[in-house]
């Protein structure tokens, strides 16, 4: 035991991993654990940057085999067309199976009712579509790209996040998660949401996209778009959202930090048109990605916790 001055060796040993290598190794381990412990997993893919990282991690975990699970997109019908096109190209290139669960189908079947008015969004309706699809396909584990740095409730969530047969999350009754020993035991009808990149930050994701030279949908880079201001955020004008009095569209150079439904995802002013410029912009940014661009989290202090309890992503 010492209290005196410390001398530090600055040369690093050969047997050292970078933080991205360590995070990647952990995520690959988690994915293989799910493939081994569950009978019918599924990977939830939105076309956003986090799920693009998940797809690469699945390649790293399972190649030269196919993924031992399909990929599923919960399609609100209000997605950015650039993102939907990107989704189809990526899945096709990887040769994996894509399931599209459609919120429109849930509306047509009377499972959910469409909201009306200028603030109408299909964000919350997705939960029913997702849970119905999980039940229909008998999925027992669903990978998601959520990260603990995104939001307060998520900071408390386990990597293996248990859902009861109503799809509900009970934050006060979570299984302890020790070492790398993940308890995937469930009963029929229950399922587990699995978050392999729980320990990644927004910056880690962008650094990894750069390291792996992964493509992302074009809307993550600065582009000129017609937008309008609402609640301090910039929304793309589009057919799914009604303008309110005083909202005047204008042209601006923007990019998206997150990719969700067009009705609740805001853009940020930006001129960052390359990956390096985006990383530099994030390093200098002083506002969280969800705080800046997601209306769905602004409803209340516990908006995410409440939606997660119901079975949201």
């Amino acid at each position, binding site marked *: 035991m010492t209290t005196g001055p*410390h001398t530090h060796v600055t040369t690093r040993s050969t*047997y050292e991993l970078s933080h991205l290598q360590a995070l990647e190794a952990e995520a690959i381990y988690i994915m293989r654990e799910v493939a081994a412990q569950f009978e019918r997993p599924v990977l939830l893919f939105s076309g956003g940057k986090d799920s693009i990282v998940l797809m690469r991690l699945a390649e790293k975990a399972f190649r*030269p*085999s*196919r993924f031992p699970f399909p990929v599923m997109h919960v399609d609100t019908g209000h997605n950015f067309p650039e993102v939907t096109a990107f989704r189809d190209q990526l899945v096709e290139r990887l040769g994996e199976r894509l399931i599209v669960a459609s919120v429109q189908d849930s509306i047509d079947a009377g499972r959910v009712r469409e909201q009306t008015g200028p603030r109408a969004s299909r964000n919350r309706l997705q939960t029913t579509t997702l849970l119905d699809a999980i039940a229909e396909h008998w999925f027992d584990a669903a990978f998601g790209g959520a990260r603990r740095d995104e939001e307060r409730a998520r900071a408390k969530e386990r990597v293996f996040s248990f859902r009861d047969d109503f799809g509900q999350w009970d934050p006060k009754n979570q299984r302890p998660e020790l070492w790398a020993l993940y308890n995937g035991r469930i009963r029929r009808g229950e399922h587990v949401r699995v978050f392999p990149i729980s320990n990644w930050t927004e910056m880690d994701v962008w650094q990894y996209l750069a390291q792996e030279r992964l493509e992302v949908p074009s809307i993550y880079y600065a582009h000129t778009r017609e937008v309008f201001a609402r609640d301090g955020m910039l929304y793309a004008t589009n057919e799914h959202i009604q303008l309110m009095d005083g909202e005047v569209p204008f042209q601006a150079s923007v990019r998206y930090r997150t990719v969700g439904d067009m009705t609740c995802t805001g853009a940020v002013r930006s001129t960052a048109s390359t990956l390096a410029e985006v990383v530099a912009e994030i390093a200098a940014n002083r506002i969280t990605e969800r705080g800046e661009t997601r209306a769905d989290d602004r409803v209340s202090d516990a908006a995410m916790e409440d939606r997660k309890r119901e079975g949201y992503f």
Partner: protein
Amino acid sequence: MPAVSELLRVATAGSVDDGKSTLIGRLLHDTKSILEDQLAHVAETSERRGDGYVNLALLTDGLRAEREQGITIDVAYRYFQTGAAAGTATLDTGAASFQGGRKFIIADTPGHEQYTRNMVTGASTADLSIVLIDARHGVSEQTRRHAYITSLLRIPHLVVAVNKMDLVDYSQETFEAIVAEFTDWATRLALSDVSFIPLSALRGDNVVERSDSMPWYQGPSLLYHLEHVVIATDRDMDDVRFPVQWVVRPMSDEHHDYRGYAGQVAAGVIRPGSEVLVLPSGRRTRVAAIDTYDGALELAFPTMSVTLRLEDDIDISRGDLIAGADEPPIVARDLEAMVCWMSEQPMRAGGRYAIHHTTRAAKAIIDRLEYRVDVNTLERDTDAGTLELNEIGRVHLRSSTPLVVDPYARNRTTGSFILIDEATNDTVAAGMIRSAR
């Protein structure tokens, strides 16, 4: 190739009183890891609650119940980074050289005795633990409990942060008395690297920057220590331990005969040609290749996730362990272990549980409880009949099938297990193997 830096997992335990939240808040704030909307939210909530100050504990209390009750219930994970990991370096440096800075994952756990299980959970994956001592009060029951858990969980590095030095006039004598008292008591523990840092989280003394108020202290600030403590040598690089997680058999035309064993290296350095033992069968063979998505590797070491191909065609499945031929692990069904009980339902002596050890699942019967440890005094109660929630004790277990184990002191992966109640599927205990046969 992006700039790279290391990952350090830190566990902190403590309650509001000893300034833990202030310390974490200070680290996050001074490394610019709290963003404006988060800070504004905390400030607004503090005011609404009438806290009278910006209550940084609200940053980590993520659940509605925690905010309502003003307590930390569960482990919260916080992330911050310095230097290259913070993304300030350019993306295309062309070399994978370390440029300083680290990424930190802080498992922030409540410190009270009724949350021992959360502390154990946070500690299980930590490289370093920070134990806080209030300089006015010296070594407390809570200090001893946290140090014991650090020792029990074999966290390789401990920082004893003697906080609130501003309230004892930055007294060297006070600091040294605490160091002496702690050091004397800690001889009973298995702590390998202990550093003492006098600081004031509130004033920022010795947290990020060295303090002018304590010229008698020649050591580093807390952040400097966290950035520079050497963790690469913490792992056992000598004896290979590779639990088989997943068998890769594509069975496609292109890879018709491919058979690989995927897993994460738990110890040792693996090279093509390395002689290995497959356990529990005991068959010997050599590593033919180390495969990854990015191509074959010349060596693999902890904690890399790789796929091994072997020279001989041996029947291997999930739960088997590939080990170095020298100093192999123990194949055993009888285990002596320390367990921390994590369930509201007390331990049932003679009870049957599911056991998960590395990638192997089996059944286990708890034959008997040898003793219960008083986590505050380290006294052993050999008359205890059971373990209740948050209690720690030594048990004897029998497994339904052979497990391939090491003592936990030797390897945290092959030495640890969890017990699961088969009726509820809840994880009810965390175990650390002392010996096996």
